[in-house]
């Protein structure tokens, strides 16, 4: 980000004042302005999509969220009532509580795993580690729907191997989607799906470090453990912040995996399990689009607050968006 900011900060050399400026400067200023308009032409196609599919839906959702639809009363303006209702709604509260606690536990675990793999893969280069890198990354190429289904099968008492494995030691298998276990059952699915992707990003950042830094550190007597934690990790910290932000946003919007596993969870995963599932069901099971919009917007507010709290605490790391 530092670069982008620097680029933004360095304004074009202004040819100020018509009085002192020669005709060459005038012309160059004109050219500069004309070129500026060409800049907009390059951005215009994206800007249109941005306005139509991001700004407009947001504004429209906000508009919808200010109205309520009653059977007898029709659609009426109710101001922030939907938001008051949302933040007092036990279903929404429970869902937000779940995704936040899920993020707090999941993301550090996922990060430690992917960082550890990336450090090992960066330190050792053989055929085997190259193979390992590809295999660990492979789940990223599997759609989340399919990943969740596969784990659902593996968890299943009918199809899965758990029953067999546990019967070897004479125990009965736990059901990973029971109310007590569902937190870890889902955590496993998400870690499996994303750890490899995060690993590859960290790995790419590690490969970008100039190796002469390690030489210098070794001459100074640093052991490889110190090289890893005092040099490598700080140098890739902006990559870590970037993927933490993405993991945070993704986790708070948790939808696909619990939605797919709903049917095989024997009722553990309820229609208000996460805020997004709740909003989806409000919209498409109850046709309550006003309230669903308010829920979507309220979730957006929660995400924004969480991301800003996170970026505030990592601001010295100088990462993305800081």
């Amino acid at each position: 980000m530092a670069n982008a900011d620097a680029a933004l900060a360095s304004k074009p050399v202004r040819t100020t004042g018509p009085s002192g400026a020669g005709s060459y400067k005038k012309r160059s200023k004109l050219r500069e302005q004309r070129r500026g308009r060409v800049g907009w032409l390059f951005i215009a196609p994206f800007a249109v999509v941005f306005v139509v599919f991001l700004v407009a839906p947001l504004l429209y959702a906000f508009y919808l969220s200010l109205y309520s639809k009653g059977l007898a009363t029709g659609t009426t303006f109710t101001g922030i009532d939907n938001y008051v209702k949302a933040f007092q709604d036990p279903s929404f509260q429970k869902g937000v509580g779940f995704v936040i606690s899920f993020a707090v536990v999941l993301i550090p675990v996922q990060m430690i795993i992917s960082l550890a793999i990336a450090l090992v893969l960066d330190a050792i280069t053989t055929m085997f580690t190259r193979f390992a890198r590809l295999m660990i990354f492979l789940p990223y190429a599997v759609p989340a729907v399919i990943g969740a289904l596969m784990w659902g099968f593996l968890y299943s008492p009918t199809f899965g191997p758990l029953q067999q494995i546990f019967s070897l030691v004479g125990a009965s298998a736990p059901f990973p989607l029971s109310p007590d276990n569902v937190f870890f059952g889902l955590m496993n699915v998400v870690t499996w799906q994303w750890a490899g992707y995060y690993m590859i990003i960290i790995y790419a950042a590690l490969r970008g470090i100039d190796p002469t830094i390690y030489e210098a550190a070794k001459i100074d007597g640093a052991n490889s453990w110190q090289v890893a934690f005092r040099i490598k990790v700080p140098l890739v910290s902006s990559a870590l912040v970037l993927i933490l932000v993405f993991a945070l946003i993704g986790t708070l919007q948790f939808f696909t995996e619990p939605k797919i596993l709903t049917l095989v969870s024997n009722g553990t995963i309820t229609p208000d399990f996460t805020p997004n599932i709740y909003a989806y069901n409000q919209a498409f099971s109850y046709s309550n689009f006003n309230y669903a919009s308010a829920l979507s917007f309220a979730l957006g507010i929660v995400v924004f607050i969480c991301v800003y709290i996170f970026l505030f605490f990592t601001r010295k790391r100088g990462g993305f968006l800081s």
Partner: protein
Amino acid sequence: MTTARIAAPSAATTRYSRVPKGQGPGRRVLPYLFLGALIIYFLIPIWWLVVASTKNVGGLFNGSAGALWFDKDFAFGSNLADLFTYNDGIYLQWLGNSLGYAFAGGFGATILAVLAGYGFAKFRFRGRRVFFSVLLGSVMVPLTALVIPTFVLLSELNLTDTIWAVILPSLLNPFGVYLMQVYATDAVPDELLEAARIDGAGEFRTFLQVAFPLMRPAFVTVLLLSIVGTWNNYFLPLVMLQNTRLFPITVGIGLWEGQASANNGGGQSLWGLIIIGSLVSVVPLVIAFLSLQKYWQGGLSIGSLK
């Protein structure tokens, strides 16, 4: 832990002296065990899928060989035939839809991103800083929170339940624009553009013939990420589409899952289709990733090194 400490220095020398041999494998046992265990963990679901796709319904439910090994009846061929003929071959239709959405959405989003990223990086114009800040902020807007309002908006235009309802919202990729901007700032020298202009090339021609070739690595990376994003998307098509003929593979298999669990017992054969259908749907992307390694592995560091 201790072995990792011993192992790493030898590896560190390996790295720049490029002499992979000479270190005894014994010193690296722990890292290798660590990686080996991880490979097993990451491959188990896929292994299960491969094994289960070779079983017939009987083997799936009461097989003698267990969940992680092949049954005596090898039914892969007939399962595959069932998959492609079930319901007039709707599975192939879904596969085609997924490909269509992924390529249309992926290429569209990437072309918009490369143009906008170049514009932000190489032109100075009024409103640029404001727009770019808004764009960076928008990376944080939860995209799924946009899906429901976008649905309502598109339904007023009677565009829901058409392919456009899936393709058009997929064109939005603010993070792709950010990556392109970062990349273009570094990779495209201003002097080169200036030279092209002095030679009389128009702005668009300068972009196509001078800047674009330099931005190709970023283009390929953003393209891959966008295609994967669209291919894997579930929430958007789930919300937008009712006509099962328009479903992409993710929503289609979700539909089968719903039908299979709705009629427990009667849905047994459907579970078999879900399993082999999942396997087949994974194959195209896995092949794409394995064959395009050198492109995406380098490109993924673009956004993170800054």
